[in-house]
């Protein structure tokens, strides 16, 4: 029985070791971004080793500024959330307050209709404290759906997407293709995913269009000739949508396909990119998406499909510049196009790094113990 006891200790040790690591990592990421930003902003005089007087004050100012930005963001969020509870037509409580007793908010930046200017503050930070070229952090878990061959849960900031891959299996005769594998895609969002409650999760024009986009994109990624007459089903469910839903779906699908062990040319990664007064900003949240700025989603692999939509989404394979899906929403000035494409492709490369690490770790984990 003592073997069970010491295994017990090993187990608890592992757990005790693991939790602080989680918290440590969390704290470190916050600390690093803060110190990196303040150092760039304030450290100027390298002649002496100690901090000069004004550098010291600049650093403390910079930290306060950062804290203020975060608090301001919380405030705006608190103001936005109740507005989201009521239909556009309804008079939401906050508007009631505004109309009931109009009062001046002294030096606060948040005016009623956020102009594009307020997307990036003068210090180059966005509403949620990110730099224009910085992506939100990605958490993923692979292989959680037991019925599906491959499945992936991906959290890109607040956007949470669940994707399942079934197949290749012998599907209905109507969808069967003689020479290659038929890919069936369905993109659906839960009714509580957006800020407003939708009464139909799928089947509306927008989700059918996105399903078709995903189908076309992944037909060029998967080596379909190796499975004639069979069918692969790809189902994406957006559990909570906070911007760049299509990009998150492409990333989740490519991870799920890798988990399912389906032969592919590579892991497709996707990113959205918008443009604000000629400066590209990447990985847009729903708050930045609702404004009028053009957005591009690019998912890169081989053929470029340029569809004119406002959001520019681009997906590339392994970060190289083979583009498999481009979706542009709103009008975009022609010479901005190249700027936005490059920014999006660069971000795709970063996203690819994250996806590659996750896929490799998962494969190592699910290899059978004592398998060979």
């Amino acid at each position, binding site marked *: 029985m003592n073997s069970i006891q010491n295994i017990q200790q090993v187990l608890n040790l592992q757990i005790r070791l693991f939790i602080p690591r989680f918290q440590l990592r969390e704290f470190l990421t916050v600390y690093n971004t803060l110190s990196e930003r303040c150092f760039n902003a304030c450290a100027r005089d390298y002649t002496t080793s100690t901090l000069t007087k004004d550098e010291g004050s600049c650093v403390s100012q910079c930290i306060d500024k950062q804290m203020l930005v975060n608090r301001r963001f919380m405030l705006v969020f608190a103001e936005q959330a109740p507005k989201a509870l009521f239909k556009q037509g309804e008079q939401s409580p906050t508007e009631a307050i505004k109309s009931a007793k109009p009062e001046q908010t002294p030096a606060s930046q948040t005016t009623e209709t956020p102009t594009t200017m307020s997307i990036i503050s003068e210090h180059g930070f966005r509403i949620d404290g990110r730099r224009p070229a910085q992506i939100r952090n990605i958490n993923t878990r692979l292989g959680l759906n037991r019925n599906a061959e491959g499945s992936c849960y991906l959290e890109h900031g607040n956007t949470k997407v669940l994707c399942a891959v079934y197949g290749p299996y012998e599907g209905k005769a109507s969808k069967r293709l003689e020479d290659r594998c038929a890919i069936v895609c369905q993109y659906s969002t839960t009714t509580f995913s957006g800020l407003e409650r939708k009464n139909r999760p799928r089947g509306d024009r927008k989700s059918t269009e996105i399903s078709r986009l995903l189908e076309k994109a992944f037909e060029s990624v998967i080596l379909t000739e190796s499975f004639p007459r069979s069918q692969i089903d790809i189902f994406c469910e957006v559990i909570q949508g906070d911007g760049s839903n299509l990009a998150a779906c492409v990333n989740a699908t490519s991870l799920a396909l890798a988990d399912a062990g389906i032969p592919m*040319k590579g*892991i497709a990664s996707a990113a959205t990119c918008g443009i604000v007064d000629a400066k590209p900003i990447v990985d847009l949240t729903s708050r930045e998406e609702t404004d009028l700025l053009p957005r591009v989603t690019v998912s890169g692999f081989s053929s470029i499909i340029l569809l004119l939509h406002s959001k520019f989404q681009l997906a590339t394979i392994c970060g190289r510049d083979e583009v498999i899906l481009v979706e542009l929403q709103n009008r975009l000035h022609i010479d901005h196009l190249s700027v936005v494409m490059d920014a999006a492709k660069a971000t795709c490369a970063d996203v690819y790094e994250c996806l590659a690490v996750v896929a490799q770790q998962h*494969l190592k984990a699910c290899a059978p113990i*004592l398998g060979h």
Partner: protein
Amino acid sequence: MSIEISGPPLVSPWMMLTMSDARNDIDKDKIVIPGQAVCDAPQQFMRGHGTYIRDGEIVSSLSGVVQQLNRLLMVKTIKQRYAGEVGDVVVARVVEVQAKRWKCDVSSRLHANLPLGSVLLPGGDFRRKDVEDEEKMSEFLKNGELICAEVQQVQHDGTLMLHTRNNKYGKLQQGILIKVPPHLIKKSKKHFHTLPYGMAVIIGCNGNVWVTPALPETTVEEDGSHVHEFQIVPQDIRLVMIRVAACVRLLRDYSISIFLNSLTTCYEMSQPYDIKELSEQETSSRLAYLITARLLQELQQQK
């Protein structure tokens, strides 16, 4: 009948095992994901299965382990849907009765075919199959029934041709079927294991594990047809079968490969626990630890 609802495990038990030392057997191999270059000097190697050429480089198209056979580079997938090989023993379910053949689901890319010609009819001998047999096909094997068969041939598009020309193959009677990802099934010569506790296990290569009571052979009538009496399985054999089934599920949850030795170790180690507890999270994680430790020890001793 106490019910308790717990919160999510802080770290999924499956992840705990991967961080433990039981997994150091994997690290030395080179794991690749699709789109990753397989080797640095592409000239000296020949391109094998699971790779393709992209601007002069050999790149993997599968997520799996790189294997080198003197100059041939291959990528063997870790996790994939079952692709049959000749000689595999599979447990399949009849999906459709067609003219002169049965279509069976082997959870592979396409349904497998079991031609009427390669089946051992109740008559016992290989007599010519005539028209009358064709009408009685669904009487012999109807939709939804389980069979155990061997892969005779793999066609070009991946469909498997099965045969049951042996009395250990054929229709399966009472028992429990557990679906397991096929990559967890360890390659072994024997697939039929009769365990001493009065029951038998068939480990199909396509990931279907069939646990059945080792009942005395159903009495064979003089005309050779199996008498199909429904014997009620005695309670003690049933409990043993359910414990083995729970062990297979435990091995599947912790992706420990399934073969006779791992099954028997798991069965013995699960004795002190109630069958119901095997599916609960903390008992199963503790058990999984013990099993991997024991199996690794045995591996060291053999080396």
